[in-house]
């Protein structure tokens, strides 16, 4: 019997955020103990390819990831122009709600045990759902931080992720991966990909070297050099569900250095898409994501500049020069093929409506780090599971993003009307919507482990956008069951919200303190 070679040498192609994050996660799991180093991680990046640098919003999962790879939160704030992201606020996504609705990161009060949707509906109150159940909304309005300077690193009074400067983040990760985690960095252009007899990748040839490996991770971005180009794994187009395929990204400087920093991403719906607006330490990032079949670049440019003009004071619009990005919404039919796995945009890309790009990188790299194949035979099993796992994650992301479009009552353009057309709605989402008409989203909806979005996220979007779940037929017993608990939850939320407003500093105040004092790990 032939001996199976162990998986020891991992080659990562591409040095953007995806590449360096992947390298850091795998290395922190397998290379920290230099003495017994069994796995070697090498990252090859081309010196003449510029990174795209989109993906300035993260999920709360990034806290766990940064802690895992050993980056101090204080350093992260100081080096990445980072700010706190506590959720997303959606403007103009419906007609009747001229005011916005929010998808905060903090779960509804007592969410493990109590579903507050029906009690909230029974109240027939003017208070929006998210505000009635989650203490984070008044925090958004006051530009407050989710923690105090005395709160330990990566802990918070409220759940949070980050807004960050993607270029600076990649720099921080590169330094950390090479200096603290022992990742080998090769800055050379890859000229060719060489196969083994069995069809696996054997090595990558650069201008001066041939680099062999056991597992190749493709982080080469949209060009997908290994999985797409070399192996010819096709992209599964998702354009029929999510129309957006273009973006204009701009940087907007603050009027002065004390300008308040927003606590959440602001997403404002437009004629043929939506505009993101992210507050970093020294500037905002704003961009229009749109469908090229529903508007022209020129019109999109005008709409973006109009938005920037309306949301800024004393700004010279001539100084704004948006960068155009085009993408095909979709993902590869498989992500792991033979001894090659794609992470990041090489695996797929979809509009950043719920900032799902970086979290998929974190999840993919974590699976590789935690379930590293032992040998080549074992790799096929891990690959099969990986493909199944991430196919489901992509499907649920597409469902959840599409949910934002199907609930609108906007009729003011073809874009919005087509978005509600039944032929553009995935079957799984149509089924869920039909179910939610009678039962609000709840834990048992999440029939798989590691669900992408908790039931809370569906609740925030559905009831934020005015969805109606029918009352129970057996109202009396049900009302008796929840009335006491629910009113206690609403009251607790109210109290918690007031308390937090009185103790939390503004984002700007806390970030200034992070520079002057730093945070502690305990």
């Amino acid at each position, binding site marked *: 019997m032939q001996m199976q070679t162990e998986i020891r040498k991992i080659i990562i192609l591409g040095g953007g955020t995806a590449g360096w994050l992947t390298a850091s996660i795998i290395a922190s799991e397998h290379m920290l103990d230099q003495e017994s180093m069994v796995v070697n991680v090498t990252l090859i990046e081309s010196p003449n390819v510029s990174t795209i640098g989109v993906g300035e919003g993260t999920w709360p999962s990034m806290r766990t990831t940064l802690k895992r790879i050993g980056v101090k939160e204080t350093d992260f704030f100081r080096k990445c122009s980072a700010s706190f992201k506590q959720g997303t606020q959606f403007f103009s996504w419906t007609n009747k709600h001229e005011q916005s609705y929010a998808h905060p990161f903090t779960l509804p009060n007592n969410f493990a045990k109590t579903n507050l949707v029906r009690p909230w509906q029974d109240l027939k109150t003017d208070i929006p759902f998210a505000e009635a159940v989650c203490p984070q909304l008044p925090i958004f309005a006051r530009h407050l931080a989710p923690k*105090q*300077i*005395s*709160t*330990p690193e990566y802990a918070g009074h409220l759940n949070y992720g980050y807004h960050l400067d993607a270029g600076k983040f990649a720099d921080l990760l590169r330094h950390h991966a090479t200096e603290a985690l022992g990742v080998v960095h090769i800055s050379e252009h890859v000229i060719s990909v060489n196969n083994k007899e069995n069809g696996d990748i054997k090595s990558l040839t650069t201008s001066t070297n041939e680099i062999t490996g056991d597992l190749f991770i493709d982080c080469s971005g949209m060009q997908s050099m290994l999985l797409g180009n070399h192996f010819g794994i096709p992209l599964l187009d998702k354009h029929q569900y999510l129309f957006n395929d273009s973006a204009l990204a701009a940087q907007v400087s603050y009027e002065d250095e004390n300008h308040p920093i927003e606590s959440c991403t602001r997403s404002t719906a437009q004629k043929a898409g939506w505009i993101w607006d992210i507050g970093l330490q020294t500037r905002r990032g704003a961009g229009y994501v749109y469908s090229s079949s529903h508007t022209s670049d020129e019109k999109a440019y005008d709409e973006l500049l109009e938005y920037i003009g309306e949301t800024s004071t004393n700004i010279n619009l001539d100084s704004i020069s948006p960068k155009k990005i085009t993408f095909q919404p979709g993902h590869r039919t498989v992500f792991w093929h033979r001894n090659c796995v794609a992470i990041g945009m090489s695996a797929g890309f979809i509009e950043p409506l719920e900032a799902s790009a970086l979290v998929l990188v974190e999840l993919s790299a974590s699976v590789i780090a935690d379930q590293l194949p032992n040998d080549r035979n074992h790799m096929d099993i891990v690959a099969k599971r990986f493909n199944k796992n991430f196919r489901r994650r992509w499907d649920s992301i597409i469902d959840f993003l599409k949910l934002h479009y199907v609930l609108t009552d906007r009729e003011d353009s073809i874009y919005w009307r087509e978005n509600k057309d039944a032929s553009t709605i995935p079957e799984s989402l149509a089924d869920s919507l039909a179910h939610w008409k009678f039962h609000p989203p709840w834990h048992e909806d999440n029939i798989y482990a590691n669900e992408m979005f908790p039931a809370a996220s569906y609740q925030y979007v559905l009831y934020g956008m005015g969805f109606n779940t029918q009352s129970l037929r057996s109202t009396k017993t049900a009302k008796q069951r929840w009335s006491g608990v629910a009113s206690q939850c609403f009251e607790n939320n109210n109290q918690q919200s007031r308390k937090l407003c009185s103790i939390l500093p503004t984002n700007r105040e806390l970030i200034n*303190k992070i520079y002057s*004092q*730093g*945070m*502690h790990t*305990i």
Partner: protein
Amino acid sequence: MPDYRLLTSTEHLDHCVIAEKSYAMGDGMMHVMVFPPEFRAVQHHFPIFFAKDPETGSFYPTALLGLEQDENLFLESHGWGAHYLPMMMERSPFFISFQSSIEGEKRPVVSIDMDSARVTKNKGIRLFQDSGEPSKYLQDVVKKLEAIHKGHQHNKDFASALLELELLESCNVEVGLEDGSQRKLTGFYALNEDKLHKLDGESLSSLHSNNFLHSIYMCLASYSRISTLVEKKNFLIRAKNKQFVSEKEVAN
């Protein structure tokens, strides 16, 4: 609202200060900041933990005086119930503030909180003699203020040395009382003895050269003083029950 004024013999010649400690004078604090130079005296009476300044997030050593918010078990009917009074309590109602000189240099000056209940015109200890010379009491207070001024830097250095070696950990102190109730103290930090014992010679020698090693062992020794707090609390519980019983007897 505190009303800080620069202390001068002309302005405050006739003023007196009530030095006795009591709840009425605002001494009902659960813990008070202490400084390494007073650790030897402090550890004899109070447990020394670490707390975080909510404004800056920095750590400082603090003597535990009570088992719940706004409780100071050392405020007894006859006065202060220990043989040592931490400097931060002794200095009340005085503070150090900074005044810029003509050259732009900042120098420490003594201020007084005129809003404090301690400050009177007829009761307590005089601050100045008729001649305008500071009284013995004021001279002592000024010495304490100077020690506190130096102590802040000392605390900062001490805490950063401990943090660098990861010798501090968040701790939850839980104590049971005679009436069956429990008190849980949160938001305090203590020394991690396991980590201390595993320190290499180089780290120990560096701690020793700054005299921090001495302070560390003073803190460790102080933990047994939690029992003093529990005793005092149990005594109060017993007294309260007795009063309740005797009131009942009178009623019968």
